[in-house]
């Protein structure tokens, strides 16, 4: 890999823009493909550029059908937005970070979202709907609400349900969740929206401690990400 191309690749990662490295396996010649252009010594046909961009959209690195070229997709990291800088968040944030997620935590209550409690995590003390809109959740974003407080969770959910977030989960008992859905229905949301919400959050693994609840949420989110049928508790 040429030094210049490595630097360009790193710059795209820094900017959090998607990029794909295409390598001709025979001699190692390479080019970078972005959503808007290409760079590097290897000349690519329009079909090869299209294939690279399709792979970027699908987040699927791989070898060309004729076996001559390898396309390595470097998409920006998956994101997790946590609403509520609570005890569970202190466990969930580092677990998600270890799993490759860029974590943001939203909590307008000043004593909760402190750097002391959440080192190395992006914190926002804006109101959850404004904070969520600023973060622009997309199809590579997971959203978990943990406050139990309708004043905080509901505005975040309004934005979440209008986004393409791949995982939306809300902490709270079945009763709390039923009341949440009632309020959302009054706001105009429908059963189709409710099917996207995982509530109560997490797989039913009998989690009790904050760490165990964080594990159950991580596990459920992972199953959803890979399109695996989530486990259900025995009846």
């Amino acid at each position: 890999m040429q030094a210049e191309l490595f630097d360009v690749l790193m710059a795209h990662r820094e900017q959090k823009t998607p990029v794909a490295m295409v390598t001709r396996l025979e001699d190692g010649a390479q080019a970078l493909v972005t959503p808007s252009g290409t760079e590097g010594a290897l000349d690519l046909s329009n079909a090869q550029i299209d294939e690279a961009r399709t792979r970027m959209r699908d987040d699927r690195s791989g070898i060309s059908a004729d076996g001559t070229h390898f396309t390595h997709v470097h998409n920006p990291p998956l994101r997790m937005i946590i609403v509520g800088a609570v005890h569970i968040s202190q466990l969930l944030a580092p677990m998600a970070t270890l799993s490759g997620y860029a974590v943001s935590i939203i909590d307008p209550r000043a004593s909760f979202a402190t750097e002391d409690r959440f080192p190395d995590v992006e914190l926002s003390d804006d109101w959850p709907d404004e904070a969520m809109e600023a973060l622009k959740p997309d199809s590579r974003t997971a959203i978990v609400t943990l406050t139990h407080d309708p004043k905080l969770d509901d505005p975040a959910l309004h934005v979440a349900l209008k986004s393409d977030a791949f995982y939306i989960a809300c902490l709270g008992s079945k009763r709390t969740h039923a009341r949440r859905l009632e309020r959302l229905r009054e706001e105009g949301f429908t059963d189709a929206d409710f099917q996207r919400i995982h509530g109560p959050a997490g797989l039913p693994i009998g989690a009790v401690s904050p760490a165990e609840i964080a594990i159950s949420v991580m596990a459920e989110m992972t199953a959803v990400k890979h399109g695996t049928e989530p486990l259900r508790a025995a009846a």
Partner: protein
Amino acid sequence: MDRYDPGQQDDILGRIAEWRRDGRRIAVATVIKTWGSSPRPVGSQLAIDDSGAMIGSVSGGCIEGAVVREAMQSIQDGKPRTLDFGVSDEQAWDVGLACGGEVKVYVERIEGQ
């Protein structure tokens, strides 16, 4: 071997950038194709420097030894290589995958400044 730092361990390219700043000579191995139950998905990377230090992985540890040897060669001669590993591929390589899968690994040198 470098200290295990979970916060950075999976950012292979970021670590390669650090190694470059340290002036190390580096090769990187990438899983480019898999068949069957191979342990690491396409795109997984292992970076190796000329002292044999490594970060990341291209298998569950089954083929890393052989990949490191080829990577050190690539650091010397500058030639990229494509390596095939399978469970029965004993003639070409003295290692195989216990899981029964097969992987194709591309090894390239990171050129200096």
